[in-house]
């Protein structure tokens, strides 16, 4: 008990220790900064694995052994309150894994190394904060603070159009969070019949079904109104159509490691928000809106896939494929069945690993070619015949692509299968159309692969070198993850089963 009670604190604050350490390393000692950051993230990863090992998979909901609660602002009954359950644990482990890999992949960063790694570690800490916070206020603080390092990381180290992308990302998500803030504070006061608080666990359970809000003389049910406020806040992060327009810009302009974190972790914060806050607190409204959520999810799947198909920039293609894949997660959430929700959480994890692979691979290619055109604007081929030139790269690319496509035996398949199993009964039409999305997904990925890897070797591709040891090294854990969890997903499924079951049974009452 005593050994584990501070584990969450350690994981949350470890990256901050890393940041402080970096501040003391002179700017010119770039090697030391990299190694220090790597050591720091590896320690965090080990701590996360310890958390995973000590996690009791039979307990639904929050695990007492890990929870931390310290009073913060007594006037508003705000606490520094951390906890972990089966939904947040996979996200924490995913974050730790991806961050360690991101540090390795950022070895080639030359510009302002010190600031880059400090911001990266700072970002890591804020992401943990979101996944651990059990106080809505604390959650909100972390949710917002995360924007600051992200803004700089995209804006300073990004591509040509980085400023526009960074500002758009910042404003867009800030807009969503502000609505969330209003909803959050309103919730605080409505919860005041017993005791006003921001405690997510105390708020959840569907206490607010009878509350009514009067706006310009119209009586509107509180739960529905503020579910929508929270929905927009989270949906922008996911991103759910039509709030997705920031994502392609941010992805394309961001440096590789940031794209990885963005797609691998940050998008999941949105769906995590649904699971942790919107659904448990407003179960009735969630059920009421589940049709709409399912349709929006479907639009994401199909629209994202079609957009991806039209891209000539390979990074943009993968960015739109993320929109499509997150649509599957939304479908799973809308199902509100055990399989659907399990599938959604599993897909959150699996998409994190597979899309991270894709972005890392594109980053590796970009370092060699300095462009990402499948077809250049003038109509000539950007890449061609890579398969014969870069064999190791191609093999890993194939694994990543198939995992992302959802080929049986690789991780994407299981989660998508679970999602479709989960939604079939409630939304048969949507399921049928949704499966078409899988098909389109296969089509654009294979087309891309054909155009880039087969055919005549484009002249400049001949000078590219294959992946070096460092690059292969950081791809290995991800390859293992997508293959291993494709065959044997129960290490993740077991962890989340109980917690997801608890949420589903709450939703089933409405």
């Amino acid at each position: 008990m005593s050994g584990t009670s501070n584990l969450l604190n350690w994981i949350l604050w470890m990256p901050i220790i890393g940041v402080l350490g970096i501040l003391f390393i002179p700017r010119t000692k770039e090697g030391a900064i990299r190694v220090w950051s790597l050591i720091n993230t590896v320690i965090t990863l080990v701590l996360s694995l310890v958390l995973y090992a000590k996690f009791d998979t039979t307990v639904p909901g929050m695990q007492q052994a890990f929870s931390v609660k310290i009073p913060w602002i007594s006037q508003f009954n705000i606490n520094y309150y951390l906890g972990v359950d089966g939904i947040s644990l996979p996200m924490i482990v995913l974050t730790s894994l991806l961050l360690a890999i991101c540090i390795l992949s950022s070895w080639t960063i030359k510009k302002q190394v010190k600031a880059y790694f400090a911001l990266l570690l700072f970002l890591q800490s804020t992401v943990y904060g979101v996944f651990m916070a059990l106080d809505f206020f604390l959650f909100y603080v972390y949710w917002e603070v995360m924007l600051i390092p992200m803004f700089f990381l995209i804006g300073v180290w990004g591509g040509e159009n980085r400023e526009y992308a960074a500002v758009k990302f910042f404003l867009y998500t800030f807009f969503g969070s502000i609505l969330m803030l209003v909803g959050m504070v309103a919730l605080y006061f409505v919860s005041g019949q017993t005791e006003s608080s921001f405690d997510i666990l105390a708020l959840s359970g569907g206490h607010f079904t009878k509350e009514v809000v009067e706006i310009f003389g119209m009586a509107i049910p509180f739960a529905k109104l503020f579910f929508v406020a929270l929905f927009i806040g989270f949906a922008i992060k996911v991103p759910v159509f039509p709030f997705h327009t920031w994502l392609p810009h941010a992805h394309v302009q961001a440096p590789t490691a940031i794209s990885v974190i963005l797609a691998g972790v940050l998008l999941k914060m949105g769906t995590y928000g649904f699971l942790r806050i919107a659904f448990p607190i407003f179960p009735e409204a969630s059920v009421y809106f589940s049709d709409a959520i399912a349709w929006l999810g479907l639009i994401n799947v199909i629209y994202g896939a079609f957009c991806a198909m039209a891209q000539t920039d390979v990074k943009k293609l993968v960015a739109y494929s993320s929109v499509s894949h997150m649509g599957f997660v939304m479908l799973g959430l809308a199902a509100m069945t055990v399989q659907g929700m399990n599938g959604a959480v599993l897909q959150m994890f699996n998409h994190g690993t597979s899309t991270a692979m894709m972005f890392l691979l594109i980053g590796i290619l970009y370092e060699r070619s300095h462009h990402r055109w499948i077809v250049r604007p003038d109509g000539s081929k950007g890449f061609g015949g890579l398969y014969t030139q870069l064999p190791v790269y191609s093999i890993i690319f194939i694994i990543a692509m198939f995992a992302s496509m959802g080929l049986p035996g690789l991780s994407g398949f299981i989660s998508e299968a679970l999602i479709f199993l989960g939604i079939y009964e409630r939304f048969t039409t949507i399921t049928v159309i949704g499966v078409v999305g899988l098909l389109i997904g296969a089509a654009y990925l294979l087309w891309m692969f054909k155009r880039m890897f087969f055919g005549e070797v484009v002249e400049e591709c001949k000078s590219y070198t294959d992946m070096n040891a460092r690059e292969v090294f950081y791809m290995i854990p991800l390859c293992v993850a997508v293959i291993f969890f494709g065959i044997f997903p129960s290490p993740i499924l077991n962890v989340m089963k109980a917690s997801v079951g608890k949420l589903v049974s709450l939703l089933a009452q409405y």
Partner: protein
Amino acid sequence: MALTYLANIGRYVPELIMCFTMVGLIMIEAAYSDKEKGSSKGYLFGFAYMGLFFSLVYLVQGLSKDPVTLFTGSVVIDSFSTLAKIVMVLGTAFVIYLSRQSKDIYEDMKSEFVIIAVGVLVGGMLLSSANNMLILYIGIETLSILSYVLASLKKNDTRSSEAGLKYVLYGGVSAGIMLFGISHIFGMTGTIQFTEIMQILPTLDAQKMAILLPSFLLFFVGIGYKISCVPFHMWTPDVYEGSPLPVTTFFAIVPKVAGIAVLTRVTMVFFGGEPTALQMTWVGTLSVVAALTMTVGNVSAIGQRSVKRMLAYSSISHAGVMIAAATVLKQTGATSILFYLITYMFMTIVAFFIVSIVQDKYGNDHFERFNGLMNKYPVMAICMAIVMFSLAGLPPLSGFVAKFNILAAILKEKYYVLAVILGLNSVVSLYYYLKIVRLMVFKPAESDEKIEGFGFVNQTFIAALCVPVVVLGVFWEKIILIADGAKIFIK
């Protein structure tokens, strides 16, 4: 009676100290000015700081004391006004420091600036304690007349003169309108004492209320002008831009704090009780004014080229946020306003300080002057970024906490629409605050020239002022407790 009077006047010492300081400053200036120009400045600044310091000590001591009324009930010293005065005194002290550094005020005008600033401060202190229509009017006029002089402090600069003139004209008209409203209120109620008006208001019949209603709106014009809320904001950008930078900083703090404080007091005293038609009109007016002020201020700030002008418009929108909290009519509103004022003062000072030094270097304060500041002066750029994020309301900075408190106060009263407008305005404001951060961090510097103003002392000073902006964002419990204890005394 006489004894209690003597005992109570002890609470009026901070104002008296400032009055004596002003007189002392004038005497120092008179004694030295004929000799070599500027030889008096060391004494002058020293004396001003001494006065401000003693006044501050008295104020802090008085914070925990019971509220009293003075001068037959026309002035009230309570913890609300005391806290507002502390903010004003601190703000004045910082601005005087800034004025000494700034090149925007001519060397031979610096002593005038200090003297007049102290005078404005006295007016502000009186205004925040006003418990009677006449004192309110005197407070506003003391504040205003000296401000007119400040605005045109750069005598041979046409824009500064224009600013002064504009300020005088607008100020004169609005003061006249307010006086008309006040006399009308006096005509209807037969008294100018706040507390007596408060008792009469609920007893009025519908007809009398209908007559009184416009007079309250006229009365609001004067206050609205002072805090530059829409539609009385037109003067602000021009005056702010035309005035020398330390003066602009001063205008953004002291008159604003005083205006917001008196607005809160008037609102709470007159309309804090049972809902009447008058109260609903007043609150309704305030809500609309708040929403408009926030929006107009923010939207206008987007298109500005000069940072000073941008900050001027942004200060309009911040006033709007505070007016929104004034609609609450309860202690929670007053508390959130006080917290906002405290954080707002620190943020404004840091922002204006950095702008001032940059402007002194380049001769103007266009946005491009901030390009690449991150590479040249990282500490300053980080401070500026912190302040910009804080002004926009990002956690974990104090600006966020301030906005959160106001949102909480509004939402507790279930003013959902106002809360959403407030929130959306934060998003708009982020756009232009972000612009500065963007230029500082993402753009390369125009030149490698040094900026002399960013010496070690000034950098330390600015960084130190930045500390509360960060610390109050995380550890705000104590301050909110103090602000919560600062009740408005009604007697």
